């Protein structure tokens, strides 16, 4: 279950990143509301995931996989180029996640 909770938390964190950009320094009321609601939902599911994960491990997984998701969605949906620099970051995060899992921390 903890991976499912983490996945839901990550999905909402990706929404936070997109909404926070559109909230324009929290001057746009609608996007500010979406940012806060998504952030609260992400926080709740993160707290469920952290019942099993270590705080340090769970938090890092959450924020970094969300970062990878934002980069990949940007490339797939918003026509941003997946440059070699970004691909390197994505690879490092994925390698770290797999390594953590294999070493029994996740």
């Amino acid at each position, binding site marked *: 279950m903890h991976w499912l909770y983490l996945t839901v938390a990550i999905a909402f964190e990706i929404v936070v990143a997109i909404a926070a950009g559109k909230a324009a320094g929290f001057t746009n009321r609608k996007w500010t509301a979406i940012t806060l609601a998504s952030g609260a939902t992400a926080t709740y599911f993160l707290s469920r995931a952290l019942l099993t994960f270590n705080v340090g*491990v769970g938090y890092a997984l959450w924020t970094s996989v969300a970062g990878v998701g934002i980069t990949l969605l940007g490339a797939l949906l918003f026509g941003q180029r997946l440059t070699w620099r970004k691909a390197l970051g994505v690879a490092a995060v994925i390698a770290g996640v797999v390594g953590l899992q294999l070493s029994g921390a996740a």
Partner: protein
Amino acid sequence: MSSSNRSAANSWLMLLLAGAFEIVYALAVGGSHGFTVLTWSLLAVVFFLLTLWALSVALRTIDVGVGYAVWAGIGAVGAAALGPVFFDEGLTLVQSLWLGLIIIGVVWLKLADRLDTAEEPLDQLRHAQAVSA
């Protein structure tokens, strides 16, 4: 000149503060035990708002990619370092190294955004057009 230096220094101070708030937020979310422990839960809510506020103020002057990289890095390193202090948890050396790779990866990813943007203004323009279309 000196006033713009001061405001830049204030922005970086605000960014460091946002990073510190993010560490407290991460620890409080963990300590809330699925929002069943009142004190930690309240702390999580307060610092959730504080970290968002401080980050948004800092990003008024600091570049978004750089700002996010520093903020995410401080939060992740801080949570990993202080988690074992507050809770009954620990990592082996190998696990810490993998965790380090993840954190370096996400900080790099946010910085890459900045570097790519600086290098490819045309791409950004096309992106802006695609989004607004």
